[in-house]
C-alpha cells in the first residue's frame, strides 16, 4: 500500500504549553487508520493541523512520495482532505438537501434561483452512495434524530463541487458518539466501501471496540508524542489502553466492598409521561441501578420525570414518604443530578470551579441580607475539589479551561457536595478519556458506598455491567427486563436492549 500522506516531526505549542512534540503520522491509500489518545493528548490539534485550520510550528510533509513545503497543508488540505467532526453543524430549519450543500455552490438557474428538484435528486444520489435511502431530501433537519443528523453530516463530506477532485483522505473525529448501533453499522459499511476504492481514512475514536473492528493500523498519542503505532491485528486492547494512559490498567471496575442495604430510598410506581409507560422500580440505599436501552427508549426521559422537568403521573415515594418531583426543590431535598451534556446543561463554562460546584447550594450559605460568605464557601469548594481529585490550577480556575474528564469531576464535586440520598447520572463517562473514566468509576463507587442510591443511564454496556447491581432495560418507554448484573455478558445485555432475549439465552 502506498503512503498517501506522511507527516514528520510535527511540533505545535500554544503559549507555553507544547501540545505536539515531534509527531509523525503516515496515512496510506486503501487503509483505515485509527488514532487514539486521551483528552489533551493532542489528537484534536493534530486533526486541525491536518485539515489546514491550524498551522504547525514545525512540520515536514510528503504527499504521494513528493516532499512538500510546510504550508502545503494549509493551502491544499481543503481540496484533498475531508474532516467530519463529532459536533453536528447543521441548520435545523433547512432541508436535508440544503444542509448537504451548505457552504457549497448549490445548483441554481442563472446562479441565483435554486433548482430545488435538481438539488434534491443530487442529494438523494449522494445519500445513496452512502447506502442511506431512508431519508427524504426535502425533510427539514429539525424533524430528524441525532443519528440521522450525523449521517447528513457525513453525507455532506461526500458532496463535491463540479470541478473539485474527489477527496483522497477522510478524517472522522468521534463520528459514532451519538449513533445507534444500526447507524454505526451503516457508517462502517460506508467507510469500508471508501477503503475498497483506495481512499485513506483516519478514524479518531475513544471506543476501543470500534477501533479494533474497523481499523487496519492504529496510532496512539500521549502528551503530544506517538507512543504506539502498528497494525491493529498485532495489538491487544490492554496494550492500547496502557499506551494511552501511560499506566497499567489493573482492575477496570472498582468492586463493591460493603454489603447491600435493603432500605428503600426511592420507590416509583406506574410512572407515565409522554415517553414513559407505567414504569415501576425501587432503589435501595447504596445501590447502583443501571438504565439500559436503545436511544429513544425513555432512559433520559425517566431522569427528566424524576427531576420534574417533564410532567408525569404515577406515585413516587422517597424514603417511604409520598414525594412529588419538582426542579426547584430537587437539590434542596438532598437529591443530585449530573446531566448528559456537561457543557450545555451542566457547567457555566465561563465561571469558576468554585461557583460551579456550589451553584445549587449558594443561597443556603447566604447570610442575612444575602451576603455571600466567601471564605467558608471557598473552603468547602476546596474540600469538594480535593474529594473528587480535579487536576487543574485551583478552584478559581474557569471551567472552560479544564479537560472533559476534569469538567465531569467538577460536576461530581457539585453532586457530592451535600451527601445526596439519590444521585442521577446520565451518561457519566461520555467523551471522557480512559484515565478519567477510571477515576469516575471510582467516584461512583465511592458515592454509592457512602450510602447514596445511584440511578445511572449509560450506553456503555460494559460499564453498566461492571458498576451496577441491577439493570433496568427500557424498551419504548416500558421496563422490558430487570436483570441482576452478576454473570451478565455484554452480548446478552445488548440482546435484551434490542428486544431479542431469545438470542441471549
Amino acid at each position: 500500500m502506498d503512503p498517501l500522506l506522511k507527516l514528520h516531526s510535527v511540533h505545535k505549542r500554544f503559549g507555553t504549553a507544547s501540545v505536539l512534540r515531534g509527531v509523525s503520522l503516515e496515512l496510506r491509500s486503501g487503509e483505515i487508520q485509527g488514532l487514539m489518545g486521551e483528552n489533551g493528548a493532542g489528537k484534536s490539534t493534530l486533526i486541525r493541523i491536518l485539515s489546514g485550520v491550524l498551522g504547525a510550528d514545525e512540520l515536514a510533509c510528503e504527499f504521494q512520495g513528493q516532499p512538500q513545503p510546510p504550508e502545503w497543508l494549509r493551502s491544499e488540505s481543503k481540496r484533498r482532505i475531508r474532516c467530519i467532526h463529532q459536533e453536528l453543524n447543521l441548520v435545523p430549519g433547512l432541508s436535508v438537501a440544503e444542509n448537504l450543500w451548505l457552504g457549497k455552490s448549490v445548483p441554481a438557474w442563472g446562479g441565483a434561483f435554486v433548482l430545488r428538484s435538481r438539488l434534491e435528486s443530487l442529494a438523494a444520489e449522494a445519500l445513496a452512495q452512502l447506502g442511506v435511502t431512508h431519508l427524504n431530501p426535502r425533510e427539514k433537519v429539525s424533524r430528524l434524530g441525532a443519528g440521522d443528523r450525523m449521517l447528513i453530516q457525513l453525507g455532506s463530506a461526500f458532496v463535491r463541487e463540479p470541478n473539485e477532485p474527489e477527496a483522497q483522505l477522510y478524517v472522522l473525529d468521534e463520528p459514532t458518539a451519538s449513533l445507534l448501533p444500526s447507524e454505526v453499522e451503516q457508517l462502517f459499511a460506508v467507510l469500508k466501501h471508501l477503503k475498497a476504492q483506495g481512499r485513506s481514512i483516519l478514524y479518531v475514536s475513544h471506543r476501543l471496540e470500534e477501533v479494533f473492528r474497523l481499523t487496519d493500523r492504529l496510532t496512539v498519542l500521549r502528551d503530544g508524542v506517538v507512543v504506539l503505532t502498528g497494525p491493529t491485528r498485532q495489538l491487544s486492547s490492554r496494550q492500547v489502553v496502557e499506551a494511552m494512559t501511560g499506566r497499567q490498567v489493573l482492575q477496570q471496575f472498582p468492586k463493591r466492598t460493603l454489603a447491600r442495604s435493603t432500605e428503600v430510598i426511592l420507590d416509583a410506581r406506574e410512572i407515565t409521561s409522554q415517553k414513559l409507560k407505567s414504569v415501576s422500580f425501587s432503589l435501595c440505599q447504596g445501590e447502583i441501578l443501571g438504565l439500559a436501552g436503545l436511544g429513544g427508549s425513555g432512559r433520559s426521559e425517566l431522569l427528566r420525570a424524576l427531576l420534574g422537568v417533564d410532567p408525569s403521573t404515577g406515585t413516587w415515594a422517597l424514603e417511604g414518604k409520598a414525594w412529588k418531583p419538582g426542579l426547584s426543590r430537587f437539590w434542596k431535598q438532598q437529591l443530585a443530578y449530573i446531566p448528559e451534556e456537561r457543557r450545555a446543561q451542566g457547567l457555566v463554562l465561563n465561571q469558576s470551579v468554585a461557583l460551579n460546584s456550589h451553584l445549587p447550594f449558594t443561597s443556603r450559605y447566604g447570610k442575612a441580607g444575602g451576603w455571600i460568605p466567601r471564605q467558608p464557601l471557598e473552603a468547602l469548594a476546596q474540600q469538594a475539589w480535593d474529594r473528587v481529585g480535579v487536576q487543574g490550577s485551583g478552584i478559581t480556575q474557569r471551567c472552560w479551561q479544564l479537560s472533559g474528564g476534569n469538567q465531569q469531576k467538577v460536576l461530581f464535586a457539585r453532586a457530592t457536595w451535600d451527601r445526596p440520598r439519590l444521585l442521577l447520572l446520565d451518561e457519566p463517562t461520555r467523551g471522557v478519556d480512559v484515565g478519567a473514566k477510571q477515576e469516575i468509576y471510582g467516584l461512583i463507587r465511592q458515592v454509592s458506598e457512602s450510602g447514596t442510591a445511584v440511578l445511572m443511564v449509560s450506553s456503555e454496556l460494559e460499564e453498566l455491567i461492571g458498576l451496577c447491581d441491577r439493570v433496568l432495560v427500557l424498551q419504548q418507554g416500558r421496563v422490558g427486563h430487570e436483570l441482576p448484573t452478576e454473570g451478565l455478558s455484554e452480548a446478552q445485555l445488548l440482546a435484551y436492549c434490542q428486544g431479542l432475549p431469545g438470542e441471549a439465552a
Partner: protein
Amino acid sequence: MRLNCSPTAKGFREKLPDHTKFSMGLTTLIRRYGTFLGFLLIIAFFWSQRPETFMTARNWLNITQQVSILCVVAFTMTLVMVGGDFDLSVGSMASLSGILAAVLWQQGVELPASLAAAVGIGLLGGLFNGLLVAYAGLSAFVATLGTLTLFSGMALFISDGKTIFGRAIPAAVGVFSRGGWALTDALTLPNLTLIALLTFLVIDVVLRRTVYGRVLYAVGGNREASLLAGVPVARLRLWAFVINGAGAAIAGLMLVSRLSSANPTQGDGLMLNAIASVFVGMTMSEEGEPNLFGTLTGVLILGVLSNGLTQLRVDTYVQQILTGLIIIGAVLFSRLSQRHS
C-alpha cells in the same frame, strides 16, 4: 525531508519560550486593559490639545455630572446583562418617569409623593418587562422593544406631548442638581454625581458580595445549567429587570432636575448609550462578561469624548459619528485580539 536541518530548528525552538512569553504577556495586557489604555489615550489627546482647561478638577467634576445620569442607567443595565438579558425600554422609561413627576407637580402633588410615584412606575415597568421575559418566555428583544413603545406612548399621552417647564417644576428640583457636597471653596461634588456613585457602590456590592449577584452571573453564563442546578432562574432575571426599571426611573428624575423641565422624549437617547457602555465594558473582562468597572469606563469614554470634543468645538453631529466609530472600534479590537490568541 527537513530532518537534516534539525539543529537549526532545535535552536529556534529553544529561543521560542522567551519570545512567546513576551508576546503572551503583551497580548493579555492589551486584551484586558486595551480599552482602558484607549481611554487614557483619549484623555492624553484632549489634555495635549486643551492643556489649560481639560485636565482640571473643575472640568472633571463637570464631566462626572454630565455622565451621572447615563451612569445610573448603565449600572443597572449591567445587572440585567449579567443575567444574560438586556432592556431596550430604559430610555422611554426615563422619559416616562420624568414626565409623570412633572405632570403630578402640575396637579399640585407634593414632592415626596410624586417622586415615589415616578420611581414606582419604574419598578412596575421593570416588573412588567421581567414577567414578559423571565416568566412568559418572550425574547428580551421583542418584549422590551414592545415596552419601549408602550412607555413612550404613555409618556406622550399623560403629557399630551407637551414639555413641562417653568413654574410647574418645583424650585427644589432644579436647585438639587446645582448643589452638591463642597470639597473646597471653589469645588463641589455635584449631587447628581453622588447619586451615580451611590448606585455604583450598591450595584457593585450586589454583583460581587451577594448570593444574588454571584448566581446571576451563573444564570447569564449558562441558563439551562443553572436551571438544572435548581437555581430559581426566572426570579433572578425578574429582579434584575425590576432594579433596572427603578434605575431608569431615577435617571429620568435626575434629567428633569438637571434641565429643570420635563419632556416626554428627553430620556430616549439613554438606552443606546447605556447598552454601548456595557458592551465596551465587556471588552475589559477576560471572559467577556458584563462588569461594573468596565461599564464605568465605557460611560466615562463617552463622557470624556463628548466633553473634549465640545471643548475642541467639534460639531455635535461629528461628535456622534466619532462616538459611534470609537464604540465599534473598541469592541472590534477586543474581538480581534481575542481571536488572535
